[in-house]
């Protein structure tokens, strides 16, 4: 597959649009259909496409396992951390109203951060799952 010129060129051309679309779904999720989960899957699909065309090694250079592992944890921390911040400034857990000077701003900021957390974790987990399976070399004991 490494010599397949058409695939390589098309994939390279598509990559920025996939990422842009992912960002759109991520940040437009506050107003319309979309959100962190869907965006995360789109991002991950982009990386998986890259890995399929250019090989696992180069994909591993773009997203090393350490970063993925960090991303998985960071997203959850961001989500839960927003809730804890709400507690600290005097609201209920995940009550975004208290996050900014007025409730509307607070709700915007809150859902933005929470969805960002979801997006980061979903992307990292999806890519990690793919890498884990792709790197698995069947040994003799496996059936």
């Amino acid at each position, binding site marked *: 597959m490494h010599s397949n010129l058409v695939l390589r060129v098309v994939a390279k051309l598509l990559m920025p649009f996939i990422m842009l679309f992912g960002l759109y779904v991520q940040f437009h999720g506050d107003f319309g259909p979309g959100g962190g989960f869907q965006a995360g899957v789109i991002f991950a699909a982009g990386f998986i496409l890259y890995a399929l065309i250019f090989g696992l090694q180069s994909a591993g250079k773009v997203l090393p396992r350490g970063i993925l592992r960090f991303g998985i*944890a960071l997203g*959850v921390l961001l989500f*839960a951390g927003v809730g804890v911040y709400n*507690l600290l400034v005097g609201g*209920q*857990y*995940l*009550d975004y109203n208290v996050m900014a000077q007025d409730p509307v701003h607070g709700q915007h900021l809150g859902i933005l951060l929470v969805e960002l957390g979801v997006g980061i974790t979903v992307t990292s987990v999806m890519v990690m799952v793919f890498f884990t399976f792709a790197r698995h070399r069947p040994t003799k004991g496996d059936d």
Partner: protein
Amino acid sequence: MTEHLAALQVVIPLLCAPLCMLVRYRDWSWIVALFGSWACLIISWLLLQLVMVDGIISYHMGNWAPPLGIEYRIDKVSAFVLLIVSAIGAVITPYARESVRAEFGVNRVYLFYTAYMLCLCGLLGVTITGDAFNLFVFLEISSLSSYVLIALGKDRRALTAAYQYLVLGTIGATFIVIGIGLLYAETGTLNMADLAKRLADQPLSRTIGAAFGFLVVGISLKLALFPLHLWLPNAYTYAPSVVSAFLAATATKVAVYVLLRFLFSIFNVKLSFGVMPLDSILLVLAVIAMFAASAVAIFQTNLKRMLAYSSVAQIGYMILGISFANVNGLAAGIIHLFNHALMKGGMFLALGCIFYRIASVNINDMAGMGRRMPWTMGAFVVGGLGLIGVPLTVGFISKWYLVLGALERDWWFAAALVLLSSLLAVVYIWRVVEVAYLKPVPEDAPEIEDAPPAMLIPTWILIGASVYYGINTDLTVGVAKQAAQQLLGAG
């Protein structure tokens, strides 16, 4: 911060899980897990005190009022189960350090603690939530992380065991979500209190009947009620020692709690036991579980598998108590949740100590173990006495209230069966005692010390508690009776 305790109960382990993943230096993630599990214990203790004084605590997530928003609702039943789960977590974490390091190697321990914290978070979440769908979400968090925990076992059969559990657990979860979906279709609400109110006003429709069936079967799979227990023996046998102890002491208990919640708080007693003949179904299954699983336990050579079958039998006692549907029976079920968690948790920890030293839990390797590891084996035997139901242990208290509940319903045969099935427990515990104390130490057995204190002390805390609460029953019986009255009163 007391008003936020309800949220923190779940949020602290949820935050600790990713932190464990980030702290990868040696086994420092253990410190995070230790902090998390102890904080959970303190919070659940405070919550129980608050609930005993004030009645029900209701917490609105994100300040969205129920029934639309997600509500965390803590009453006496859930506060008691929260305390059980977090207490077991708090005792097992200190033990885990040595055991996990020995079984996984220091490089992979952080994975264990991450999954462990997520599992704790899920179990506490199931117990604390007042929203039926939220309950399903937490149930999946705890189940998924427990599949991971089981698969971490060193034995390669752990993978098949985890896979088997994954398949059956997913079927159970699917049934539960179908049941919740049908209830939502019929009533248009997911909040448990609201569901109960709306269901009480409605005539029994086929949708509600189907929802009831799906929920009972799905939850029974999760709590390993005979004959849906097939995933349990393998899962407990091949999981790492700590995981067997943790899951045996908490996961099935939380599933029993979910069953209580649905049967009594959401559906009412009239529907569950009057319109639906659930009491006789549960009675028959519970009795078969008590006898069949105990009988199978007698013939096991792997002691972890023996305890796993014994767990299936003990779950039978809890379900038996529920099937009586009166205060004493229900209280017996709830007391046994607590008591069994102590005994079985302690016994699995004792087996973990043995595994730590001789890397085997086979009965053939136990010869003379009573002299080689006196403290560990002592803990195992005291726990075993509890399983049998000897007076001055917690097992006696459970069986006492079970018999009272049975007599109250004039089911004297059930009372007789409880006593008869205890004899089977005598047999499988005696087998171990005989080998460990009466057989000589083999000539070629290497000299071993008893388990390290970091493992022995948690084991003895659980076993000691199982004796203490067999003598002083103020906490268990007091709370369980009030909880049972509250469950029955709601219907």
